[in-house]
């Protein structure tokens, strides 16, 4: 597989980068990257199971071991690779996936861990790094879909999450669609002429406010309004009458299933980065009964999604990343729960730039430690960037005179899963 930015002529050294620094905050060096990648339509789907899906009840089962739990391991579509019996649908699609069984991260608490993981655990350079979605929105060309580049589908309320963008500035924040629904503005319909007048007035006020002030806040507001305006022109993306009963059944009626189906539709429409978040994967009690209920909520729609992306040819240009904050303790606590375990856990990748049907990394027989090929979240950021065609070692953010690495410069991609 070739990459848009794989040629030597696109390479840019850090020394060269430093020489090109401009003063504007949140800029990007190597803009030719974005132009070159545009033709490849690389997109990313990140599925974030907030809390921690148990690796032992999913990708790395250890039945019969000291910490294995009660469930069986079942064969997958890749000979010799077994997954938990709680993933019967996904097991038949493992030949489309790359599974990393040797994630080893640092934080075992949510308060620190979520931000650090989603920002790629950057080295402290005195700035707040962007979440992966904001980074991709910045680093890749938005294309001509006319849609917001970074859309978050989540339970609860809608809004614009400027904070995801960190130092890149609010315009690269996430447009959050609560329960996958469109912003209220586009649900009822607005008179076009009246709307144009309102927007003109808003822009005029923004321009006046911007004088003598920093750009960040106004950028965030404008980003939010622009995102809503773009979606107002694409109501059909949320028209449920265009979804067949068969599709609904394959993805399921629970929130994660509906949200993954909505994610597929947004990716088809050209959204650059879609993140689907599901909360409460944090089974400190009754882990096994809970996983019996929770795993079908990812197993079946994830399998349907992989099928759909494959059938539509989208696995050639969409990178899929399924992960949590951390794994769960091998040790079972007094309420038969599993607690937080960053020391040895698993995630899955699929799609563009990713090998199919591979498993990398290995844990010890009891699952309590990584035995081979430990990888941190920085490696995952490198891998996703490479999969969409960006070379992190040659691409830098520029911020207040600094060239900032887009991923940890002491780490590299997980080569075994890169196509």
């Amino acid at each position, binding site marked *: 597989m070739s990459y848009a930015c794989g040629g030597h002529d696109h390479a840019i050294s850090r020394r060269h980068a430093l020489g090109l620094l401009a003063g504007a905050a949140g800029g990007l060096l190597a803009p030719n990257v974005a132009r070159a990648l545009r033709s490849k339509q690389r997109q990313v789907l990140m599925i974030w199971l907030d*809390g921690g899906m148990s690796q032992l009840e999913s990708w790395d089962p250890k*039945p*019969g071991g*000291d*910490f294995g*739990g*009660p*469930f*069986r391991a079942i064969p997958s579509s890749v000979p010799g690779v077994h997954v938990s019996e709680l993933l019967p649908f996904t097991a038949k699609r493992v030949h489309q996936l790359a599974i990393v069984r040797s994630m080893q991260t640092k934080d*075992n*608490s949510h308060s620190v861990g979520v931000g650090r993981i989603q920002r790629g655990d950057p080295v402290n350079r005195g700035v707040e790094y962007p979440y992966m979605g904001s980074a991709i929105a910045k680093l890749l060309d938005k294309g001509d879909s006319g849609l917001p580049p970074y859309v978050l589908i989540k*339970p609860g309320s809608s809004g614009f999450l400027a904070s995801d963008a960190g130092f890149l500035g609010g315009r690269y924040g996430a447009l959050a669609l609560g329960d996958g629904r469109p912003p209220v503005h586009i649900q009822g319909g607005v008179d076009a002429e009246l709307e144009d007048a309102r927007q003109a007035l808003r822009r005029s006020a923004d321009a006046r406010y911007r004088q003598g002030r920093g750009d960040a806040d106004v950028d965030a507001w404008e980003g939010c309004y622009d995102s809503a305006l773009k979606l107002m022109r694409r109501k059909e993306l949320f028209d449920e009458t265009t979804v067949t009963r068969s599709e609904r059944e394959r993805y399921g009626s*629970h929130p994660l299933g509906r949200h993954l189906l909505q994610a597929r539709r947004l990716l088809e429409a050209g959204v650059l980065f879609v993140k689907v978040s*599901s*909360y*409460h*994967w*944090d*089974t*400190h*009690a*009754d882990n*096994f009964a*809970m996983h*019996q*209920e*929770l795993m079908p*909520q990812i197993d079946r729609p994830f399998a349907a999604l992989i099928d759909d992306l494959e059938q539509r040819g989208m696995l050639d240009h969409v990178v899929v990343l399924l992960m949590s904050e951390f794994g769960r*303790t*091998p*040790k*079972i*606590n*007094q*309420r*038969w*729960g599993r*607690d*937080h*375990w*960053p*020391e040895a856990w698993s995630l899955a990748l699929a799609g563009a730039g990713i090998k199919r049907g591979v498993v990398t990394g290995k844990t010890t027989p009891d699952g*309590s430690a990584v035995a081979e090929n430990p990888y941190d979240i920085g490696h995952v950021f490198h891998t996703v960037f490479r999969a969409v065609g960006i070379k992190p070692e040659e691409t830098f953010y520029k911020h207040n005179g600094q060239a900032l690495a887009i991923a940890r410069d002491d780490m590299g991609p997980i080569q075994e899963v890169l196509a």
Partner: protein
Amino acid sequence: MRSAADPSKAWEIKSFKHDRILSTCKFDPSGEALFAGGFDGRIYRWATETGERSVVGSHVTWISAIQPGPAKRLYSADYQGNVKGWELGTPEAAWTIERAHQGWLKAFALSPDGSLLATGARDGVVRIWRTADGAPVKELKGHARDIYSAAFHPDGRSLVSGDYDGKILHWDLASGTLVRTLDAPGLVTRDPDFLCDVGGVRALAFDGKGGRLAASGLRDAKSNTFCPGAPSAIVFDWETGKALTTVKAKDEKIDGGMTAVRFLADGTLVGCAEGQSSGAISFWKPGEAEPFHTIGGQSLYEVDVRPDGMALAGAFFAPIGSGGNGRGKGDYVPNGGTLRLFGLYEKPAAPKAPAKKKTP
């Protein structure tokens, strides 16, 4: 000769430690031994007098339930839906039902005459088996979701099975028909913010005459992560099906489910509960919601009353090494279990040491 149990005077006779969590415990019909099984997939017998432990047999995965029967027989089930019948003293199972159910098998009851086993599991079907040879007898269909618990009525003509939805189905065994449904909605918590419902009818028990039925579990869960709530049981009048009392634990720190219930001969309800930091065995007088006595300790997963009614045993959690998030310090080993045996009568006074004679 002691005539009646008095739980308020309960005292610990002895305890037996194990290096893995014990999920279930039951007295031998003679009262001379305790059977227990758990996360190492083995079924053990502890002689209560000597503490001698022997292995009865094993399963491929965690033991979910055991039922000692008459004539030195024992029946066991596991979390992969397998059922085995054992003749004690013989290391191999007398019979095995492979995948009696799809998925884990939690509901497991023995008929009063020991001739039938009832099983229920995640597939929502109750199955009746002949204990002599493990042959299937009947299938009872009516549950919409996972079955967690089952109990035979003492008259041997009826069976109840409890599910994830908080439904208790009353079956006529002769005809295999559903007689009625008792509702225990308080034992399941539904919240749109949860990823799934929390709770279910986790245990069922009749009193000795069959006039009352207790159903236990967790009320008012606050989340599907730590699942904190109130360990509770609902006591039904069997004839009318009316809920008589809802009992709860006294200590609010015990925030897990009530994992097992039993009745003493005088109608006292016994329930054991688990919690994030501690558990307890509690005792309630008929009609009362507050317990009149509690035995504290770690989380418990089952309690059983000795056939003479004068003692009970509990399968307690036993922490080994550090717990919680992350690796902690020291060796990383599984948590364990403790079987604790309690007398339900006043602790006998220790025999006085003979007085020393003064030498002239």
